[in-house]
């Protein structure tokens, strides 16, 4: 598979892209009201607190939506592949766009349980999911 288009890693998002180094998934959370802030931002959109910090979250969730991509948008793609939005267990108001990977990935359906796995490329740990 082609190299992933690389996100710009800034001081606020670095923890997110490196969390997989320790094998866990972390999201930014408001420490005053508990709102999850993803993609990361430096102020809580619910209570305007600036006391925001990464917290470990369950690496499990369910598939909220998905698409199987068949189109070669760039060279080097292994077609087809699954892009999905995953709702994490215990995390309200956030969906993660990701890839469903593994031998049985193409059979995945909305509502299926999934668990996180990481793929490291050049210092970024991309959170991907496989069927649980």
């Amino acid at each position, binding site marked *: *598979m082609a190299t992933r288009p690389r996100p710009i890693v800034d001081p606020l998002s670095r923890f997110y892209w490196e969390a997989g180094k320790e094998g866990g998934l972390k999201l930014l959370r408001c420490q005053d009201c508990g709102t999850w802030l993803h*993609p990361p931002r430096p102020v809580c959109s619910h209570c305007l607190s600036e006391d925001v910090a990464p917290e470990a979250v369950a690496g499990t969730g369910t598939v909220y939506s998905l*698409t199987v991509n068949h*189109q070669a948008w760039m060279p080097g793609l292994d077609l087809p592949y699954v892009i999905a939005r995953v709702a994490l267990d215990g995390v309200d*108001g956030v969906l*993660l*766009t990701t890839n469903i990977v593994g031998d049985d990935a193409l059979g995945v359906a909305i509502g299926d349980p999934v668990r996180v796995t990481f793929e490291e490329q050049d210092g970024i740990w991309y959170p991907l999911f496989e069927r649980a």
Partner: protein
Amino acid sequence: MSSKSDPIISGVGQSAVGKFVDRAPLLLTIDAIKDALDNAGLTIADIDGVASWPGRLETALEMGPVGCDEVIDALGLKVTWYNGAIETAAQFGAIAEAVSAIRSGWARHIVVYRTVTQGSARKKPELFPSAKVQGVSGAMAHIIPYYALSAANWVAQYASRHFHEYGTTREQLGQIAINARRNGALNPKAIFREPITLDDYMSARMISSPLCLFDCDTLSDSSTVIIVSAAETGPDLKNVPIRIDAISQALPGRYTWDQPVEPACYPTGRRLWELTDYSVKDVDIGQLYDGFSFLTLQWIEALGFCPVGEGGRYLEGGHRISREGEFPINTNGGQIAAGRTHAFGYVREAVRQLRGQAEETQIDRDMKVAVTGAGGGPLSMAMLLVRD
């Protein structure tokens, strides 16, 4: 609310439209401006304002190859107002800016253009040497790295969720493309002029499930121009002025293509009816964004032609949206058949239909009210156009 002082569309124009038009972007733009001036009965000397979305876009020149200043310079215009900007609710942002400028008295006749050269850029990317960017930033940093490289992938996930929640089917969604191709067959400027059947649709190559080839629009080289003018100039024009009765826009929270936020078309659709004396029952015709067919389904729901979730059943069989139906849409073939003129083509077609000047694609009815919607995901503006 509806008022005789509402700014008007005095003229519409368009360049050649094709997958590859061998003409510089600035010249395409000037072709469209000349066509629109002729349509309005105005001359270059009458133009005192210029607007565009997104203006010149250095990081994606094929999306925004011509800046307002280049048009002003090339035509020797002496303007009292201009604006080219991308941070607005959708492509119609340029039209909304022009309406504001007319209302403020900053100009009387504003050329508003949308030029794209995405067709050429696909064939000859070296013609459009866009500025290199460092990596994926903002909300897209959490989408693109998962090889979600096209808006087809983003829209497909809204579609598959709609299918899951409401039982929407490909047979229902397919009516958008079938209708577009049927109308495109009548339009001599359309890129695709062959109708398709439901069988063609169902057996088409999948792009990003559930969206197949026919659910996607086609890239074009084109320029489309809308001239927005002050209401009091109406009596001097060559053609019937079309009043811009209402423009609505919304961004309900985050600018996002994947977070659990209501797609912006829904609040935009509700808002439109708060800004006008008309209601959805008064609408004669619709020109609704079909960069992907599913966006059209969302616009039908968002504007209140059916309840949210009922879009698939509304489209069942395709009659309602057909030329003979209660709500004919995308009568020139939309972007699916006529090419991605990037939202401005809908406005041109709406104006031509309301004036009874749509030639081969004309719906044979007396029509007064047209609705247009542009954008998808977080991008969203709607416009109600009226022939008084």
